[in-house]
């Protein structure tokens, strides 16, 4: 059983193709592993019957010579994706027992290519959080622990369930979403690979909306090549999302393993922040050395507005969220609370249905959009957002990709940062800039800290240049040779 679940997606697909094992065997092994891993709280809904049914259908297609690109591969799906006839809650009480009557485009693409769904993965409520602690289902526990310690650590957020499930070999890969770092920071905290593609690569149709101008779907996977295989299936133009880009989706996996000789890698000096652990600083230096050895030219670049990205984000994202989440009124779906009149029903429904962090962000968003403050806050943030995007435009004049740390720390203990919202927000200091600018960025596991916890490095590319991002990520992965897995305690 453990042999099948420890495979990469790539090697599992090869095994299925060569009939070394069937999808039913592969899926049954994963179903058993998911059941045995409930202490991690990674899945909020297991769908073993559906998984085995899909696996049997995959085996029939493989036998008939009609296998798709992901035929028979069991995946986990973040609970933000609408899955037809399978509960989707965004891990919020307000969606209660919501059973989508349609399939998101991203999951439809994956299932159309033959992927098998193991169940729905835990996350921060409406993807608002960096530690998974805002989930209505309780936090995911990181499979990693400090060496010799027993404290429960966060897997990061918001895609904490996706990252933990991949790290613990519960699935061959998982869908995730990233509005400010929600794919990359959890990937860094769990020793997995996560890519947020260019804004518009993946359709947002059927993905529960948080901040529509920032939200992008992407995969969390065991290797760079696996992430490339998954993204190739997930991406593509979709007329149902007006921001979906009408561009070709290349075979991203074909760029992994290519030579990076002669590529110019920018190192932004503003990403050296106060209080960053020395180990992250030295890992970054190590990453620079690895890429130099691989033939890259290293150039120092300046992104002067970096420190303003998080404050700008905490206007733009709550503003869009306050508008998007206005739909939860208790009338057409989800929770409906009691009240003396219509307004009271709305107010009580939303008070009971939304958790504390979601309420806080809706209030901030409503405030910055309200009469008298719109220009001073919202419009100002949109102008700063352009300044941040222009920083990157200037950087591309002298380099082809950027190398930075993914997060300013390793995984921290559950409960450690819940009392201070700003300390929690600072998790995303290195990732949020690319959401504002719409650029592709990947986190690659590159080493462990003194306590044995994984650390990630981030690569950022030009818009629609995932090809270069995957090539450099492949080189980084090869040089880092990160093989550590969490010791099984669950």
């Amino acid at each position: 059983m453990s042999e099948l679940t420890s495979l990469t997606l790539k090697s599992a697909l090869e095994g299925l193709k060569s009939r070394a094992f069937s999808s039913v065997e592969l899926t049954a092994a994963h179903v058993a592993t998911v059941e045995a891993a409930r202490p991690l709280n990674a899945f909020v809904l297991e769908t073993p019957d559906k998984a085995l049914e899909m696996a049997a259908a995959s085996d029939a297609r493989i036998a008939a010579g009609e296998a798709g690109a992901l035929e028979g591969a069991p995946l986990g799906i973040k609970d933000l994706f609408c899955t037809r006839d399978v509960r989707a809650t965004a891990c919020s009480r307000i969606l209660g027992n919501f059973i989508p009557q349609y399939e998101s485009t991203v999951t439809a693409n994956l299932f159309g290519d033959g992927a098998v769904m193991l169940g729905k993965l835990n996350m921060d409520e409406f993807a608002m959080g960096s530690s998974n602690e805002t989930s209505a289902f309780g936090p995911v526990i990181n499979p990693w622990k400090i060496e010799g310690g027993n404290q429960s650590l966060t897997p990061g957020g918001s895609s904490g369930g996706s990252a933990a499930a991949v790290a613990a070999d519960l699935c061959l890969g998982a869908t995730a979403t990233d509005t400010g770092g929600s794919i990359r920071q959890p990937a860094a905290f769990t020793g997995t690979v996560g890519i947020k593609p260019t804004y518009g690569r993946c359709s947002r149709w059927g993905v529960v909306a948080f901040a529509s101008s920032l939200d992008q779907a992407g995969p969390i996977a065991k290797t760079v090549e696996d992430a490339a295989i998954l993204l190739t299936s997930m991406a593509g133009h979709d007329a149902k999302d007006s921001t979906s880009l009408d561009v070709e989706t290349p075979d991203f996996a074909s760029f992994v393993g290519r030579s990076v000789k002669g590529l110019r890698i920018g190192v932004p000096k503003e990403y050296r922040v106060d209080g960053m652990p020395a180990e992250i600083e030295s890992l970054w230096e190590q990453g620079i050395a690895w890429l130099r050895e691989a033939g890259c030219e290293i150039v120092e670049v300046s992104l002067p507005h970096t420190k303003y990205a998080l404050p700008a984000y905490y206007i733009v994202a709550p503003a869009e969220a306050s508008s998007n989440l206005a739909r939860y009124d208790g009338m057409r779906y989800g929770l409906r609370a009691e009240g003396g009149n219509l307004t009271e029903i709305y107010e009580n429904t939303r008070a009971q249905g939304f958790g504390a962090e979601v309420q806080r962000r809706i209030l901030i968003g409503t405030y910055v959009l309200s009469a008298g403050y719109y220009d001073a806050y919202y419009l100002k943030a949109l102008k700063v957002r352009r300044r941040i995007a222009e920083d990157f435009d200037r950087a591309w004049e002298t380099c082809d990709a950027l190398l930075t740390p993914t997060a300013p720390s390793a995984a921290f203990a559950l409960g450690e940062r819940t009392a201070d919202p700003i300390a929690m927000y600072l998790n995303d200091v290195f990732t949020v800039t690319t959401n504002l600018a719409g650029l592709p960025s990947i986190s690659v596991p590159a080493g462990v800290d003194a306590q044995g916890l994984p650390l990630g490095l981030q690569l950022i590319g030009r818009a629609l240049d995932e090809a270069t991002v995957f090539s450099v990520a492949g080189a980084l992965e090869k040089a880092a040779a990160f093989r550590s897995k969490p010791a099984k305690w669950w």
Partner: protein
Amino acid sequence: MAIDASTVRKVARLARIAIPESGLEPMAREIDGIMSWIDQLAEVDTDGVEPMTSAVAATLPLRDDVVTDGAMVERVVFNAPKTVDGFFVVPKVVE
């Protein structure tokens, strides 16, 4: 500018979220702390900068104004808290 309990009361009303009187002051302190941190944006010179509303330079596509789907009443009301004969049942809004 400081955010006080009365501002939170007003904003919560706009956002249609019931916050008990005892919760207004703590929420005001939290939001005020966050907004004070956000105020550093004032340092950025944004004179003459065009607001950035989209991460990609794309014009909104238009499609033909035709019916593309429909006739799925059961699915539309499937998740409703209350329905009768394929209609949403909502509280009385006109006295």
